[in-house]
């Protein structure tokens, strides 16, 4: 039984005053298992963020159904229950912190759930430790770096003890160091706490570490599978103006030039392993070692 289920989800935005609307999701069906790490890829306007907002009832499907842990998101009375189970982290870390002190911001979620004060204290401390921001608990959010702010935002979600965290391009506004911090945190939460992760991104490199990659294009699922299965379809992705990780692309290009290389490599390590024998076997004059 899947934890998150989308069944033929269609969604339209109202655009004009006279009831005109534009359909951005054209019947998406998707199941996500408990404890899975899913990367949702697609370029701008592919409907990936819209789909993400269906996972915690921020948006409701125009037709079709979304179930979270068996709960129907259309049922208004279950809204709080659903949002407690599935937390959503947004792109801009500045706009999702509410209080002027880090620990009070993390406490915001549990406070809304009406949890007893000593229990909130315990959860806030645990959540801040889980994202390695415990030492900053009394700081003001505006004094933190982007990566740190985003980790505080994640802690604010963890403090509600969700089963699943959906992250909508959490690294888009961060520098490379902030990106690494946030990605490491997400992977750790998935590994150690068994939290289901749905990571929405347009950085292909971030998707490589996922259990499953789902590629969206124009409001539909284009393809899905393990990172290796998905990124071996380089031509398909390119046809839809999507990139593949750089290492994958390099090996793919060499292969199409006729070099004898493996089907699909995902990261720099694999790429080095694949190219090393090729470089060693080539004659000394044509290869200059740096």
């Amino acid at each position, binding site marked *: 039984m899947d934890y998150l289920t989308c069944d033929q989800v269609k969604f339209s935005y109202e655009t004009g005053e006279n009831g005109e609307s534009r359909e951005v999701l054209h019947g998406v069906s998707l199941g996500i298992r408990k404890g899975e790490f899913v990367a949702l890829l697609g370029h701008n306007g592919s409907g990936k963020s819209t789909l993400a907002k269906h996972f*915690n009832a*921020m948006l409701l499907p125009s037709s079709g159904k979304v179930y979270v842990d068996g709960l129907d998101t259309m049922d208004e009375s279950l809204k*709080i229950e659903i*949002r*407690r189970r599935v*937390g*959503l982290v*947004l792109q*801009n870390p*500045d*706009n*999702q*912190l*509410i*209080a*002027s*002190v880090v*620990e*009070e911001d993390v*406490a*915001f*979620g*549990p*406070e*809304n*759930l*009406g*949890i*007893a*004060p000593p229990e*909130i*204290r315990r959860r*806030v401390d645990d959540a801040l430790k889980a994202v390695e921001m415990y030492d900053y608990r009394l700081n*003001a*959010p*505006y*004094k933190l770096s982007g990566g740190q702010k985003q980790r505080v*935002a994640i802690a*604010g*979600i963890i403090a*509600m003890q969700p089963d699943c965290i959906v992250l909508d391009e959490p690294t888009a506004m961060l520098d490379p160091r902030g990106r690494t911090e946030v990605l490491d945190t997400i992977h750790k939460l998935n590994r150690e706490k068994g939290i289901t992760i749905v990571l929405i991104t347009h950085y292909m490199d971030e998707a490589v570490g996922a259990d499953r990659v789902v590629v969206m294009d124009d409001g539909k699922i284009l393809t899905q599978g393990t990172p290796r299965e998905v990124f071996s379809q380089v031509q398909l992705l390119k046809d839809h103006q999507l990139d593949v990780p750089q290492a994958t692309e390099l090996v793919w290009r060499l292969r199409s030039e006729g070099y004898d290389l493996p089907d699909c490599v995902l990261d720099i390590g694999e790429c080095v392993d694949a190219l090393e024998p090729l470089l060693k076997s080539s004659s000394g004059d044509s290869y200059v070692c740096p």
Partner: protein
Amino acid sequence: MVRDITLGQYIPGKSMIHRMDPRVKIALTFVFIIFLFVASNFQGIALMIALMLAVLALSGVPFGQYFRSLKAIIVIVLFTAVLNLFYGSGTVVWRCPFFPVMQITDGGIGNAVFISIRIISLILFSSVLTFTTSPTQLTDALERIMKPLKVLHVKVHEISMMMTIALRFVPTLLEETDKIMSAQKARGADLESGGLMQRIRALVPILIPLFVSSFRRAYDLAMAMECRCYHGGEGRTRMKQLHMTRLDTAAIVCTAVFCAGVLFCVFRFPAALR
């Protein structure tokens, strides 16, 4: 420059006054202010001054800080003092040679001194509150103090949530203003020269982007709050509970004693204002 701003006037510390329950601090500040006006003679006001000096010393905030907060109101104090010099009765001390109506009496001098002491004490007492209580504590305490107003359909929780968010976004928006100003300067905007009207007009290209981005932020924030199960004040708990300690009880008792003293002076001695 923006990064150094202190919100409100809070000066962190661990003094007795800092450690008091903010609710008690707010309530006692109100009592002090009321009694400043109840004390209608010099004996009574002397008691209030003694209490004030004790509180200032206990707050552990450098006296220089208090002087700085007084600097802002020195004009008002002088203005009221001078006005009061001419309103009063009693023996005439000095009469204006050109306008005989304008005269300074000994009663007028007394009034001027008295009123000045009242205004200065008023500012000092409220400074103690803002210097020793963080903005978060203040909004928190205000929410709890105003709770009974719910009966009158005052949206207490909403008001305090707005204050919290406003405080949180002051530095963010300042930073943003800075960025927009730099961006407009890079495009050749002239913000520093010209007359008053010209400078005000130069602010328009800064204010418009700031407004637009504030609305975008508000939209994002509302969504983030909903994602975290926010549904108004109904059924909400707070992580930090405010507790009254023995310190607060002691402060209340001390204040009560002083206030009783002031009341005694009021009935025992004649009023100072004439």
